């Protein structure tokens, strides 16, 4: 029931938001936002951006790389010198180099994997300038890339795909900023803290004194959910009562997590004038989302046979969950954050049953395409759509096309790189983690569960998710470098091929649909697309899932735990 209400509210918000996003990027801002135009112009004037200038895909990709690399360098330096900077009431010192590098990559690639505990590592200044800023910028870069990618389908016989800086500015100014302001106000009303004061020392009931970590959290929480970032202000992330105090705040944050990713297909529909195609992509994502949720929820509700048998717990598995959220909401949160590359957690994923972790790992391993990260999720599912339409085109005896654009060797090379590259790197990363003593040393558990911990961490990094399984002590040089590599690979292997394809498609002529073409706007396409995603994912990760969660599940059923 909770799930159905949630989904209806999501849909009611996502459809208009999608149209709004489309109008922002087609250059016709809706009337109620016109007053921001002068602000936008001032930004362009200050930054020396020519609004009318168009970029080729190479220039666009170059700008994207510059922004990302600059973000990494900036954040890395900031973390290293935070001790000497203001807004540091706790006098936190410089962050260790590998942690700083990992964090810098993590936030610049929209992953927000955190190997550190926020309240014990990062000063307020670092949190706000260093961590909140990339939350906006990396999300905006994702949206911009997606819009540029879609321009490949919208344009014909054209060598340019838009202006990166303009797209990023518009993403932040018209989309991310207004939404975060609304969201953070709602959150503050629910009791999320927003303060610059130092950590208060309070007397507990037992008469001991305790330091309570606070800070400017609400503003960061809003964008971390909206921009599919997920980096928590506090270590306990969204299960922390100051980040997510009430069931209602949980509901709002859950909406924020899925809102923009769910709106992107509608934005695509409006931009390309193919409303129904937008719905088709949304439905494909929604279908996979619901199936994954049902698998996870049923596993979690069935509970842990050992605990249930021993009479120490109810039927559902409550281990590692907040009582104020309960099982369904926690599982929905887990499902929502793993599909959207939003790494926030409101329950300990480590404590989910193995049957639950299978869909969660699957969501991340297939490359975050079920809704996915803001912008990049839609790009990701388009790669699968390219593969799907390639097969479908052949099966009806036409040279394959997608949305009127022919799919030729160049597009295939890029789609294959974007689909298979991350899978290949992910498998290698897991193998490195599993084979090296350094990798094994960080495990929180032995046996298949320890294997799952490593798989989860690698998948989270490669999918630019940032979700932590916990259990694994990831703040080691080994894991900081391994996941750092994964995050870079995951980010660039998605966006650069996408921009390349956009450039190549924009140059082509567009073919009209006829009775002989297979339209995307067809239920059959949803079925085939979902089938392709599931089969490709399953074929790649079958052994991993068998050795990890599935084996653990079997052993759990027969009474062995790790």
């Amino acid at each position: 029931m909770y799930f159905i209400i949630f989904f209806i509210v999501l849909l009611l918000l996502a459809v208009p938001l999608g149209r709004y996003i489309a109008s922002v990027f087609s250059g016709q801002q809706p009337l109620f936002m016109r007053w921001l135009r002068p602000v936008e112009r001032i930004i362009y004037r200050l930054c020396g951006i020519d609004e009318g200038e168009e970029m080729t895909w190479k220039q666009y990709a170059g700008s994207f790389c510059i922004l990302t690399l600059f973000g990494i360098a900036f954040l890395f330096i900031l973390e290293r010198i935070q001790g000497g900077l203001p807004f540091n009431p706790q006098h936190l010192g410089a962050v260790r180099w590998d942690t700083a590098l990992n964090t810098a990559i993590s936030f610049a690639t929209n992953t927000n994997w955190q190997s550190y505990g926020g309240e014990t590592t990062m000063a307020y200044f670092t949190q706000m300038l260093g961590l909140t800023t990339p939350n906006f910028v990396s999300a905006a870069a994702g949206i911009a890339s997606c819009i540029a990618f879609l321009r490949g389908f919208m344009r014909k016989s054209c060598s340019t795909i838009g202006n990166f800086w303009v797209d990023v500015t518009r993403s932040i100014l018209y989309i991310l900023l207004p939404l975060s302001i609304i969201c953070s106000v709602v959150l503050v009303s629910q009791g999320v803290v927003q303060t610059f004061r130092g950590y208060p020392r309070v007397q507990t009931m037992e008469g001991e004194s305790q330091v309570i970590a606070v800070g400017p959290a609400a503003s960061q929480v809003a964008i971390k959910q909206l921009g599919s970032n997920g980096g928590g202000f506090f270590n306990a992330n969204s299960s922390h009562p100051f980040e997510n105090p009430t069931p209602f705040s949980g509901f709002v944050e859950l909406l924020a997590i899925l809102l923009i990713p769910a709106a992107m297909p509608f934005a695509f529909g409006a931009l390309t004038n193919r409303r129904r195609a937008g719905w088709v992509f949304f439905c494909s994502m929604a279908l996979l989302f619901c199936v994954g949720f049902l698998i996870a929820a049923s596993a979690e509700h069935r509970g842990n046979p050992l605990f249930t048998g021993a009479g120490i717990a109810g039927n559902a598995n409550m281990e590692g969950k907040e009582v104020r959220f309960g099982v369904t909401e926690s599982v929905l949160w887990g499902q929502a954050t793993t599909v959207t590359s939003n790494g926030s957690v409101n329950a300990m994923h480590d404590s989910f049953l193995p049957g639950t972790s299978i869909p969660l790992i699957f969501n991340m391993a297939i490359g975050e395409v079920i809704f996915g990260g803001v912008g990049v999720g839609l790009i990701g599912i388009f790669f699968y759509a390219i593969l799907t339409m390639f097969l479908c085109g052949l099966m009806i005896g036409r040279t394959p096309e997608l949305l009127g654009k022919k799919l030729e060797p160049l597009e295939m090379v890029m789609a294959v790189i974007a689909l298979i590259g991350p899978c290949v790197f992910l498998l290698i990363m897991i193998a490195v983690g599993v084979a090296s003593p350094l990798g094994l040393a960080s495990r929180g558990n032995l046996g298949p569960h320890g294997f799952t911990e490593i798989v989860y961490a690698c998948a989270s990094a490669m999918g630019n998710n940032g979700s932590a399984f916990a259990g694994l002590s990831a703040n080691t040089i080994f894991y900081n470098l391994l996941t750092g590599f994964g995050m870079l690979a995951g980010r660039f292997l998605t966006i650069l091929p996408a921009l390349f394809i956009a450039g190549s498609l924009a140059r082509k002529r567009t073919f009209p649909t006829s009775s002989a073409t297979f339209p995307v706007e067809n239920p059959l396409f949803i079925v085939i697309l979902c089938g392709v995603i599931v089969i490709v994912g399953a074929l790649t990760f079958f052994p991993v899932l068998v050795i990890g969660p599935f084996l653990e599940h079997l052993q759990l059923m027969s009474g062995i735990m790790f």
Partner: protein
Amino acid sequence: MTAQRKNLWQSELTGAALRGSFVKLNPVTLWRSPVMLVVELGALTTTVITIVDSVAGGKFWFDFQISLWLWFTVLFANFAEALAEGRGKAQAETLRRTRSETHGTKVFPDGHVEQVPALMLGKGDIVVVDAGELVPGDGEIVQGVALVDESAITGESAPVVREAGGDRSGITGGTKILSGRITARISTDPGDTFLDHMVAMVESAKRQKTPNEIALEILLVGLTILFLVVVLALPVFASYIHVSISISVLVALLVCLMPTTIGGLLPAIGIAGMDRLLRKNVISLSGRAVEAAGDVDVVLLDKTGTITLGSRMATDFIPADGVSGEELAEAALFSSLADETPEGRSIVVLAKQKVGIRSQDIHPPENAVFIPFSVETRMSGINWDVREIRKGAADAVEEFARSRGGEVSGRVTRTADNIALEGETPLLVADGKRVLGIIRLKDVLKQNIPERIARLRGLGIQSVMITGDNSITAASIAAEAGLDDFFAQAKPETKLGLIRKYQEMGHLVAMIGDGTNDAPALAQADVAVAMNAGTQVAREAANMIDLDSTPTKLLDIVEIGKQILITRGALTTFSIANDVAKYFAIIPAVFVVQYPRLNVLNVMHLATPASAVLAAVIFNAIIIPMLIPLALHGVSYRPSSAVSLLKRNMFIYGFGGLALPFLGIKLLDMIIVAFKHIP
């Protein structure tokens, strides 16, 4: 289908293909098919392991069987390719042999004549070919008329007329002159003749891969790399739970997961498609054009020669007031006796029917003088004694009658106008000053044209007619033939403009032409089919040559183009869907000894780990020869909407590909177990 399949296996080509499949084991040539190259490397690895183990006295029986079946996998794929090449190659080989033995009579610029081997003839050389001789090379007749037997290349036994000037001047090397003597200009250099193109299309090593084939191959290579990493990572993962996996099993898993079915059959599909095209008497100069033909959605057709027979036929006589039907028919008959145009002959035929006389009984009067048709008078006719019979364009004949002092009744004029309005042609017949009536001439459609146009529409292709006629005539023909659109009063350059216009609207345009003035349009069209009988310029501008010169050949080309693509897509889907079952066979087999609980994954209940792996490998190997007939004949194509076509193929090859290996592997497992129990 049964008869065809018999053909395939029993033909003497099978022997050559068997030899070919071993020759193709050479890694240098196998490089063109990367998937199979990896399989071969895998087979080599397991063979080495088998040999080392057997020398060391260890257990090698299992490894030996795996190696054997891996080699079979490669051989089966090679066999498919060799078989596909066979027919076209044999045909080309015969032609090449005849040609290398052929001599041509070359005329040197200074006028002297010499016998030279056909292979020495180059572009621009002039040759003389007499009756009974073979044409030494491709070219164009510059002088003379000949009856040519083209059966060597077309298989068509009826000889055809080829003559200098006009649109029937092309000749092809290897054909035979039956009668007549021609002087021809050779138009190709050795190595660039039709024959060479023909061979290049059906011979794997020389064939250029089409963009679509390359795109598919990229996907296959990508999948191969992915599965290679999956398999390489597996022992690492397995060692985490203290399971070790033998190299043979890993190689077996790799080969089973890789898209070997499509990878092995991919070259055969393309070659067989070209071969099927060749058997429809179409030579394609680019494989790309054949596949593009599957996408064509507009075809430009010339009216004359394509849609209509190219001449008008008399269908009715309409006498003027006070004139009897017989009198008109007789006058029309006399006026046309010497008229050798098809129109004239059709008038004679119709008149004979009306008057009821047999051919022998007709003689022109003794002192008759025939007046031939001329552009100035726009009439033809006959004069004898004082009679002047004329037939011709309405206004010209009216003018003639008036000049002899007659007058034309309003009814005749009106009737003539009405006939013209209906898109047909009225011819007036006059005897001196008396206008006798009207001959109704009609454009006659070629046989089956409306059906073929309808079939084109079924394929999603619009047919557009181009004609120099006025719009009324064009409209009536278009309506009769069921065309989607027409362009009347077109000049040759209109065609080029029209093709550009359609292409700008995003259409893929096919064009069929034969004349020299078609060449620019042919060069612009996405798919350009030239008639073999057409001029050399047209043939050079086109990317396909229709040896039979039947204009509706496009239907066959489109269907074959689509079949090639569908077969590729179907086998790719099948190949990938197959993997699911193979995982369920091999993964439990790997882990079940140490983790018996994982036997729940053994959904097929395969007997032992060894039999499971072996069954998967054998299934993977024998599915290739089992699908050879499908690859060579192509997936059957029935015009229907894209969605229903996709549903059908997805169900058969996607769902079927998912389910079939579960059955197949289980069956093979049972057979293997049964054999083990026999000893």
